[in-house]
């Protein structure tokens, strides 16, 4: 099947980006140098085309009840403009997708889902919506999205785009009139830095991209460094740390699952897993050598395989070879000596926190 392209595709090609498939789209992986792009976000400001992300609008009398039913976080009586992170679960507790829910207004919720899961998610949402008095609109083709990330972002968005955002609190959103259209801006991101995400028409997305690049203050950044950035601060990627087979508890994301909520899909399975205790868990591992543990490599201890690496890099911000790995919970204690098999050799390391670099959010 032919990959889709975002509304900024031609701009990526013109910038000489390395293009690779991701989540069913041909996406820019890097423009010039992944390390420079990574550092631009940590130190100044970078812009990402994330138009591949999916958008779903849920409205109607039972919209709050419905979203609470398919979503692990609790959006009951949420204030307008508040954003929640959480997951949609299978009845088994495995993750259908992780997503953001934007409470736009009373009985109006905007869901942002992963590109690679769009078809699965839409089918899932539509199926469960049948039992509720709601309207579900799939809007992925309408919206473009850019993420502007890094410590300089707030000033740049205000000055270059003229969109007031300094008073916005982390994980909130608002609608803004821009050139006669209503766009959405949120103080969110996937890099561990302060930043904003902007949703609007393809024309708006192109204009924002052009204006920010023309300012000379913003570096175009590909999905390559988006992954190294999110990884360093321990954020999960669907497909690596979260899958249909991995539960939020195993991924260490239990705080986004509100078991005190009345009812939601997967609740029983998660409650049971919590009562029984975890058999496996995602941990951080730091290697003593610079060899790089990568997705799928075996983790070993006591002469046997105890799990697999989910994501690993030589961390650009710290220089250390680190990974997240799903391993036997008996070995998950901090400081436990484990090893990763990389090609023909076994490299020793130890269990650490899975946050390898501190987040720098403006809260």
């Amino acid at each position, binding site marked *: 099947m032919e990959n889709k392209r975002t509304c900024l595709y031609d701009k990526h090609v013109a910038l000489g980006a390395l293009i690779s498939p991701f989540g069913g789209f041909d996406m820019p992986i*890097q423009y010039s140098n*992944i390390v420079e792009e990574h550092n631009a976000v940590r130190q100044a400001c970078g812009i990402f085309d994330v138009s591949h992300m999916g958008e779903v609008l849920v409205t109607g009398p039972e919209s709050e009840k419905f979203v609470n039913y398919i979503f692990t976080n609790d959006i009951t009586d949420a204030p307008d403009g508040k954003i929640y992170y959480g997951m949609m679960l299978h009845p088994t507790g495995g993750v259908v997708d992780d997503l953001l829910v934007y409470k736009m207004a009373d009985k109006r919720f905007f869901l942002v889902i992963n590109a690679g899961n769009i078809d699965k998610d839409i089918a899932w949402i539509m199926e469960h919506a049948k039992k509720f008095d709601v309207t579900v609109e799939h809007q992925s083709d309408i919206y473009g999205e850019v993420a502007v990330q890094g410590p300089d972002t707030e000033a740049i968005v205000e000055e270059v785009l003229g969109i007031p955002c300094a008073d916005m609190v982390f994980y909130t959103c608002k609608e803004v009139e821009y050139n006669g259209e209503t766009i959405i801006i949120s103080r969110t991101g996937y890099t561990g830095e302060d930043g904003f995400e902007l949703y609007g028409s393809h024309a708006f997305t192109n204009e924002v991209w052009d204006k920010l690049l023309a300012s000379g203050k913003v570096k175009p950044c590909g999905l390559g460094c988006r992954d*190294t950035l999110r990884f360093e601060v321990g954020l999960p990627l669907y497909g690596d740390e979260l899958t249909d087979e991995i539960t939020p508890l195993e991924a260490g994301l239990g705080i986004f699952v509100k078991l005190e909520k009345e009812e939601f899909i997967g609740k029983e399975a998660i409650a049971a897993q919590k009562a029984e205790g975890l058999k496996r868990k995602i941990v951080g591992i730091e290697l003593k050598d610079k*060899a790089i543990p990568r997705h799928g490599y075996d983790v070993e201890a006591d002469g046997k395989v105890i799990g697999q690496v989910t994501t690993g890099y030589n961390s650009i911000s710290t220089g250390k*070879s680190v990974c997240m790995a799903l391993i036997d919970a008996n070995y998950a204690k901090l400081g436990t000596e484990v090893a990763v098999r*990389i*090609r023909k050799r076994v490299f020793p390391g130890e269990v650490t926190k899975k946050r390898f670099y501190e987040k720098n959010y403006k809260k």
Partner: protein
Amino acid sequence: MSKILEGLYYAESHEYVKIEGEYGYVGITDYAQHELGNVVYVDMPDVDDEVEAGNDFGAVESVKAASDLISPVSGTVVEINEALADQPELVNADPYANWIIKVKLSDASEVENLMDAEAYKAAIGE
């Protein structure tokens, strides 16, 4: 345009070997280092390990991917480039000065199976 040196022998998998007497210095080409991007780790064999033409003897790792190193020649590793352990980025800076292993050749005629500079240039479409 990638840098290609005259007098070296090149493999389709983008390693080169520079022959000096009965020894060969093996590294990756400028084209390869550019395609890989920032090199962050070079996985090298040990001294006295045997390498065989066409078989992997280590790997070069960029931020995003690991790429096997295929030996263009057979023989015994007599030296590894220790500087690459701490400064793998030297491979990006000058891949021809920063060879990866020095091999005592067991069959000097093997280079006849490799490409010269002109053929390699054509092979990478430049």
